[in-house]
């Protein structure tokens, strides 16, 4: 639990996230926890609810996110996009097998179980994407790099 937050919201994803959310909620002093939700995935409905929390929050608020990396990154991107700072977000990642990879060509995001350094076909334009070890702050997705870039050029 972040001791310097005046108010705290907690969002967890899946069963691994649920366990952490319960620990965090139990450790948060009474009256400080303003929102506590466990969702299956960082889907549109969950991210919309999160955005509403961020929009109405006052400075002094902290957001805590727990669960698989793919969901935590997507939620963090929504929060930072609305002006939250890294110092105001705490994350606990329970696994990172699943990734969102953005295509530099068609901008579509592909979800797949793929390690960094491997390749995945883009579901938008079918180009082969090399999964680069860099996460976009804006989208929370890994950067895909066209695997056959040299051949095209």
């Amino acid at each position, binding site marked *: 639990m972040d001791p310097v937050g005046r108010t705290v919201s907690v969002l967890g994803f899946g069963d691994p996230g649920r366990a952490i959310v319960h620990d965090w909620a139990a450790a948060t002093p009474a009256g400080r926890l303003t929102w506590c939700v466990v969702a299956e995935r960082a889907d549109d409905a969950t991210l919309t609810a999160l955005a509403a929390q*961020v929009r109405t929050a*006052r*400075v002094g608020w902290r957001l805590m996110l727990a669960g698989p990396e793919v969901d935590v990154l997507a939620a963090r991107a929504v929060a930072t996009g609305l002006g939250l700072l890294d110092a105001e977000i705490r994350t606990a990642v329970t696994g990172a097998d699943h990734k969102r990879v953005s295509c530099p060509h068609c901008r579509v995001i592909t979800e797949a179980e793929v390690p960094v350094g491997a390749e995945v076909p883009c579901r938008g334009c079918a180009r082969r994407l090399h999964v680069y070890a860099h996460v976009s702050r804006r989208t929370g997705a890994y950067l895909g790099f066209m695997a056959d870039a040299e051949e095209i050029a």
Partner: protein
Amino acid sequence: MTAVLPARPATTPGEVPELLLEVAAVAHAADGVRALTLRHPDGAPLPGYAPGSHVVLTCGDRRNAYSLTGEGAPGEAYRISVLLRPDGRGGSAFVHGLAVGDRLAVSWPRSAFAPVATARHHVLVAGGIGITPMLSHARAAVRWGRSFELVYGHRPGAGAHREEVAAVCGERLTVHESTPGMLDAVAAVLADRPIGTHVYVCGPAPLIDFVERTAEELGWPAERVHAERFSADLDPGEPFTAHLSRSGVRVPVPPGVSLLAALEGAGVAVPSTCRQGVCGECRVAVVSGRPLHRDLYLSEAERSAGDAVMCCVSRSLDDHLGLDL
């Protein structure tokens, strides 16, 4: 009195190029506060600057930093407002002695207190003559449609630029003429502002300390709190030891003694000109430890990189500061 100083060429790498400007107007801004308008003698346009920037004036044998109060658009004349400090080291008396037509050496503007571009709302807090950078912030915020408010505290009747500030800010201004009223107002603002807000404070050291402490207690991360101190106002600081990595020498720096003075006392020569954190001359590379930056010279990026320190005013957050000397 007329003082005509030659423009100084940029000689050392850290030094900023200088302009030779002419006093175009002198006005009374409040009791003891002189507002100067500076122009290029041949009418050439002056470079623009980020809101909250300052210039360094060569005041006889001293160099002093003053905030620019304009919006910062390229081509604007430079405006500064200077409070006469009878107990000061002469810089303010020099400026108060200037008359229309006098020429003086003025550095290019330096930005060390700019608004954060991504902020959703800007809270400006000014105490006394600390209004000067805030006037610049407010003008630019109005111009660019940024959300802001200004809390201005000053002694009864002694508010510099009071009418101008009111005209620029309108409803977004609150003025307090008593210290308790000012502090209450600032605390109330810090307790309830939307996430994404940044706060900027300039004024006497106790006001800055109050804002920093209150913001921290209310859960504001340090990244959202920006302060500009008057350079004459530095506290003696905590003791620390400078480790000179090349020579292996250790130099203790007691409270009240600057790192520069301690190095000089140990026989280590470091070039210096202003000795108040504005000219950029005394920069020393840091190899270990975290500097406590108190200068007006380094940019925000250079500060956070933490690999250089202006040793005339800055100190150390850690017990030891490793220097490349």
